[in-house]
């Protein structure tokens, strides 16, 4: 039987992969996918703790996380389409009007 610690470790590694991916990639869509990876890592931690405690609150929270992720992707991809229409690029380094 693999203890819960290993599941949390897997979740942690996935989160770090997502965070590093967000920092090293400049393609907005791939950055978005890295965010999805991080959200999924959090989901794994929630489900693991729910199983560990034999309470289902964690699984309900995963439900909400998925809703927020779906909403975020819908709005984010709409922004990406609008951006691409105006600037013909998806490189985060070339979109810098709001940056100082």
């Amino acid at each position, binding site marked *: 039987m693999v203890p819960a610690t*290993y599941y949390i470790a897997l979740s942690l590694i996935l989160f770090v992969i*997502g965070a590093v991916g967000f920092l090293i990639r400049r393609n907005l869509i791939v950055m978005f996918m890295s965010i999805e990876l991080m959200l999924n890592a959090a989901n794994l931690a929630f489900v693991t703790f729910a199983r560990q405690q034999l309470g289902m609150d964690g699984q309900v929270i995963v439900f909400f996380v998925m809703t927020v992720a779906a909403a975020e992707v819908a709005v984010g991809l709409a922004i990406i389409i609008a951006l691409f229409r105006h600037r013909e690029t998806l490189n985060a380094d070339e979109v810098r009007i709001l940056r100082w």
Partner: protein
Amino acid sequence: MSPFTFFPLAALIIASALGVILNLHPIRSALCLAVTLFLMAVMFVFLDAHLVAALQIIVYAGAILVLFLFVIMLLNLEADVPHKRRRNVTLVATASGLGFAAITLHALFSSEGSLPGPGFSVAAPAEFGTATAIGELLFTRFVLPFEITSVLLLVTVLGAVVLAKKKLR
């Protein structure tokens, strides 16, 4: 889950997650993300979260991923070219990520056995993680967040339509 299923599964998940961030072509990243999400659903099944596993496949692999692939194909993206100027950022990001992972993993494994709760050795009750049990929780204790979620989805629909409209003013 026995170690003989957990470790290969975990290795596959990590490999496909690395594929998401290391592939230069966005389509390949998206397909790697699909593999990661499916394997995570398998992981959820082993953790007795059956409804969450089903939702994972329907919402993530079904809806979110199709949206990603649709946008990538719509925009007809080329593969990225690795940028020379960004090599320092990549190095620093990778190093700090590895450092963070090392510190937290060390903290996690040096406190082994201290996670609260009955643990995995106790068999889960039959209704654990079923749609009935989760639905009951959702409409009793979590009814306010559930209602707020519907407002969030409404705002999302409006926002996506406004943002993706032809003329942005």
